[in-house]
């Protein structure tokens, strides 16, 4: 068996990729179109984005399947193609992945709530995530990355589902808001509770993504590091989106400022770093340089 991502984490900081959705849009994904549909309709475009991230220095790319759960796909009327779109997502990433690099099967939130806030039972969520995980594993993902979770209960359903239906290691990132009393998910889950429960349920790496910029993320990584010894993932946003007068969107934290905090993230305890909203292959390239300077 070749070296796994977890082996690599023990040796050095591992670099993930950056945003996918904005890259697809920059290549013509029409507004309102399901991004996952391009895994089948325009696989070459998705492959090119993965390739660009590998060229920039990513050790791991995450598949174009963030919204690939049956429940989320149903918003586009594509729930009947769940297995097909996820399988394709993993396969096309696999094809462009060089030796010694990895594919993480991305699984985002359903966008719906569990009872009592919503209509769904935990068993239903678990089955939906199990289905997605199976297809990603069949398509050749090396690990599963459950991302951007704002509800610990949903994250645990995803984790259980993923572990039930595939033999792959499962990583989980939650998304936290900074409020006056500390970091909390939308549902009010604390950092301590998230880290502890995810670890107990068998996550092999845990962490946070989205919402916070790289400076704010540093504080959060410190807080997470106090709660777990698992490898920690940190994928910050490049600040807040700002719409220019030319109608183009940029992010408030520019590339240089974003990357400036990468050494701090690592010092605070992050083992696996990457980008989130507002980041691009250029950000990843600069992060790769920052990391190699650090180890050099």
């Amino acid at each position: 068996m070749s070296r796994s991502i977890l082996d690599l984490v023990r040796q050095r900081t591992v670099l993930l990729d950056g945003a996918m959705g904005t890259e697809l849009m920059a290549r013509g994904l029409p507004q309102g179109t399901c991004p996952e549909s391009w895994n089948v309709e325009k696989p070459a475009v998705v492959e090119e984005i993965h390739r660009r991230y590998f060229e920039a220095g990513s050790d791991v790319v995450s598949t174009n399947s963030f919204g690939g759960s049956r429940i989320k796909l149903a918003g586009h009327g594509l729930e009947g193609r769940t297995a097909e779109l996820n399988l394709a997502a993993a396969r096309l990433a696999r094809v462009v992945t060089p030796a010694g690099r990895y594919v993480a099967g991305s699984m985002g939130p359903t966008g719906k709530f569990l009872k009592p806030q919503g209509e769904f039972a935990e068993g239903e969520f678990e089955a939906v995530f199990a289905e997605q995980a199976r297809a990603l594993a069949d398509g050749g993902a090396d690990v599963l990355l459950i991302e951007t979770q704002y509800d610990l209960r949903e994250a645990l359903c995803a984790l259980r589902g993923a572990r039930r239906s595939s033999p792959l290691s499962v990583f989980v990132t939650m998304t936290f808001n900074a409020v006056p009393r500390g970091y909390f998910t939308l549902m009010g889950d604390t950092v301590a509770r998230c880290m502890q429960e995810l670890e107990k349920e068998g996550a092999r790496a845990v962490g946070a993504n989205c919402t916070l910029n790289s400076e704010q993320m540093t504080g959060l990584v410190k807080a997470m590091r106090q709660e777990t010894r698992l490898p920690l993932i940190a994928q910050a946003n490049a600040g807040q989106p700002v719409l220019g007068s030319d109608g183009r969107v940029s992010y408030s934290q520019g590339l240089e400022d974003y990357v400036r905090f990468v050494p701090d993230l690592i010092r605070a305890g992050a083992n696996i770093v990457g980008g989130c909203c507002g980041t691009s292959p250029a950000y990843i390239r600069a992060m790769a340089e920052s990391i190699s300077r650090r180890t050099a």
Partner: protein
Amino acid sequence: MKKEDLYLQMKKAIVEGDGAGAGRLAGEAVKAGLDLLEVIEKGYVPGIQKVGELWEQGEYFLPELISSAEAMKAAMAVLNPELQRSRLQARTAGKVVIGTIEGDIHDIGKNLVSSMLQAGGFEVFDLGADVKLERFIEKAESVGADFICLSALLTTTMVNQKRLVALLRERNLRDRYKVLVGGAPASQRWADEAGADGYAENAVAAVKLAKSLAPKR
């Protein structure tokens, strides 16, 4: 039970998100022949205000907001038919047409704003997600709305908020409605840029903003 104690219990039921309790207390108020408009104003509204404060202080989160908004609904479900029977109407803060903008299927934030506006006394017409611009205007015209509230989670769909404002202008309807925008990528700066009347960062702030802009009746 003294009226004041009943009001305190009503407030507590809302703060604790106790829908069954909120409904039961409303029933007691009806049976006791109390002034139901006063019951709403002095019993339930202070509860939802307290919930807003707890949210702002970072004590309450989305589940608590939803439970409290549901408790408010349970109380109003008992009180509204009684008010109608006596040809009264709960004081409405204004009529709101709300939805997630065309091209965007994200509805968690929008649903929360919709619930909180309802709990805050607005009459809300929720059009759901991925709502065509045309549909917002049709609905607002047909119900005589005061507000059109637009949600967007994506930077790419957010631009449709601006298009809606432009469409209103084109039809000489701009002055008829207050247009409020929200969603993760939105900001005050964006609201200004889009020509909207306001922006709110979260559901509690949205209720405050709408109240501050509501027509004086």
